[in-house]
C-alpha cells in the first residue's frame, strides 16, 4: 500500500520516535565541544559535562577520574536509553532493535574468547563487555575450543545462531581464527540485517539500506587496509567481505587483489561515493586517516536520517551518533590526560 508508513507508523511507534528525536536534540553542540577542548584536567571535563544532557552521570565515581571510567559511564547511560526504547517497542521495531544488539553481542563473544586465550578471569571480562550486547549464555563462552563447540554448546539459543552457518569449523580458536570468526559472523549479521530492512520496505528501507551498504563497503576497505603485511591470504580476505554493499561483486573482486593503499584507492575511484572520501585521506601521520574519513561520512548519513519521518532508521542513527559523541569525548579526555593537545581538535562535530 503506497504511503503506508505515514498512515500506520505512529500507531505503534510514534511515541518512541518522538522520544528519540528529543534525545537527539540533547547531543553535544559545537559550543559544548569548544568548552570541553579548553579543559585542563579531567575534573574540569566532568564539570563541563554536568551542564549538558549527561548531567551528573559521573557523580558516583571515586577519585581519581580516568578516561576508562568516563567511557564506561557514558556507555551505561546510552544503554539505559536504548533499553527504555526496546522495552516499549512493538514489532517490527523490536526485531529491528534485536538486530542492532547483535553487532555488540558479536564483539562481546570475541572479547570473551580472546580473553580466555589470555587466561583472563571470566568476571573481569564480563565487567568489560558492552552492555548493549548482553545475553544470558555469556558466562559459558570461554569453555569452547572451536567455533563448532561455541555454536553447539553455547550460542545455539541466542540471536547469533543464524549467523554461524559459514563459521563452523574444527580449527582451534587461536588469534588468526578468532579474527576470521569475528569477521565472518559480522558479515552474516550485516547481510541478514540488510535483508530485513529491505524486506520491510517503505521509508525504513530507503533510509537504512544506503547506511548498511556503506557499512559493508567500509568493512571491506578497512579489512583490506589492515590485512597488508599480515598472514591473512587474499582468498581468506575475500571470504570476509560483506556482499550487501555497492562494491559487490566487481569492486570486492578487485579489492581482494589489492596489495597496497594505492591499489585500494584505484578500486574506490570507480565509485562516485568513495572517490572523494579517499581523496580526503591525508598522507603520513599529518592528515586524516581512512577511518576518520569513514566516520565523518557515517555521521553525515546518520544526521540525514532524521530528515525523514515514520521509519525505524532514526533509532539506529541516534545510537550511532551517540557512539561518535562518546568517541569524541574519550579522544578529548585522552588528549587532556596525556597533556598532548596538538591533535585535540581531531574530533568529528555532529550538530
Amino acid at each position, binding site marked *: 500500500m503506497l504511503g503506508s508508513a505515514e498512515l500506520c507508523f505512529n500507531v505503534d511507534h510514534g511515541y518512541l520516535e518522538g522520544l528519540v528525536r528529543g534525545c537527539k536534540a540533547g547531543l553535544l553542540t559545537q559550543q559544548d565541544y569548544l568548552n570541553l577542548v579548553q579543559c585542563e584536567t579531567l575534573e574540569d571535563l566532568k564539570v563541563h559535562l554536568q551542564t549538558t544532557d549527561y548531567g551528573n552521570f559521573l557523580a558516583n565515581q571515586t577519585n581519581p577520574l580516568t*578516561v576508562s571510567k568516563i567511557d564506561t559511564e557514558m556507555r551505561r547511560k546510552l544503554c539505559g536509553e536504548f533499553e527504555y526504547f526496546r522495552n516499549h517497542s512493538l514489532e517490527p521495531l523490536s526485531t529491528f532493535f534485536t538486530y542492532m544488539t547483535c553487532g555488540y553481542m558479536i564483539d562481546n563473544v570475541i572479547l570473551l574468547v*580472546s580473553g580466555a586465550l589470555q587466561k583472563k578471569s571470566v568476571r573481569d571480562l564480563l565487567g568489560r563487555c558492552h552492555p548493549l550486547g548482553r545475553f544470558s549464555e555469556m558466562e559459558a563462552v570461554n569453555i569452547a575450543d572451536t567455533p563448532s563447540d561455541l555454536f553447539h554448546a553455547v550460542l545455539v539459543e541466542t540471536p547469533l545462531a543464524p549467523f554461524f552457518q559459514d563459521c563452523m569449523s574444527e580449527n582451534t580458536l587461536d588469534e588468526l581464527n578468532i*579474527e576470521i570468526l569475528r569477521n565472518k559472523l559480522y558479515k552474516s549479521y550485516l547481510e541478514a540485517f540488510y535483508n530485513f530492512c529491505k524486506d520491510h520496505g517503505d521509508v525504513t528501507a530507503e533510509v537504512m539500506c544506503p547506511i548498511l551498504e556503506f557499512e559493508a563497503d567500509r568493512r571491506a576497505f578497512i579489512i583490506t587496509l589492515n590485512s597488508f603485511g599480515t598472514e591473512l591470504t587474499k582468498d581468506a580476505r575475500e571470504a570476509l567481505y560483506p556482499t550487501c554493499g555497492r562494491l559487490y561483486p566487481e569492486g570486492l573482486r578487485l579489492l581482494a587483489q589489492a596489495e597496497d593503499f594505492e591499489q585500494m584507492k584505484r578500486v574506490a575511484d570507480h565509485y562516485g561515493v568513495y572517490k572523494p572520501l579517499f581523496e580526503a585521506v591525508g598522507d603520513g601521520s599529518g592528515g586524516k*586517516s581512512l577511518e576518520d574519513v569513514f566516520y565523518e561520512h557515517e555521521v553525515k548519513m546518520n544526521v540525514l536520517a532524521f530528515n525523514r519521518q515514520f521509519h525505524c532508521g532514526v533509532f539506529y542513527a541516534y545510537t550511532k551518533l551517540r557512539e561518535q559523541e562518546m568517541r569524541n569525548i574519550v579522544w578529548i579526555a585522552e588528549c587532556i590526560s*596525556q597533556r598532548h593537545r596538538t591533535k585535540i581538535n581531531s574530533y568529528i562535530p555532529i550538530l
Partner: protein
Amino acid sequence: MAAADLRAELDSLLLQLLWDLEELESKRVALNARVEEGWLSLSKARYAMGAKSVGPLQYASRMEPQVCVCTNEAQNGLQKFRVVRAGAQSPEEVGPREAALRRRKGLTRIPEPEAFSASPNPLNWFGILVPHSLRQAQASFQEGLLLAVDMASLQIHINWGRSQLRGLQEKLKQLELGAA
C-alpha cells in the same frame, strides 16, 4: 711538565663529559617524544577499534619478553648495555645434539624450527587485522626502548667520566701543593 700534561688530560676529559651530557639530553628529549607519540597512537587505535579493545584485557598478566638487555664489559672496565632478541641464543646449542641423535638412532628427525622461532608478535594480542596506528605505537615504543638502553650506557660512561675528572683534579691539586 707533569702538571701541563695533567691539565691537557683534564681538558679533554671535561670536553668528552660535556659532549656525553649533550648527547644524553638529546636522547632524553627523543625518548620523551617517542613515548608521547606511542601513547597518542594508542589513543588513536582506541578511537578506531573501540575504547575497550586496547587495554589490560588484551594481554596476559605473565608474558615472555621479546627483547632482553645484555651487559658486557668494555676494555676500560665499563659496563655497556645492548638489546638482544630473546631466544636468539638457543639454536646453535641444540644443533650438534640433534645430529648425534640422528647418527645413533638412524632416524632422520627433522629439527623443529618452530620451537625456537621468535616469540609471537604482541600486536596479535589485539587481533590480526589491527589499524595502522597500533603498529605505529609499537614502532615508537621499540625505538624508545633502544634509546633507553643507549641512555643507560651513556649514564654509566658519564658517571665514570665524572669520577675520573675528580681524581685528576685531586692529583693536580697535590702536584701544585707539592711544587709550591
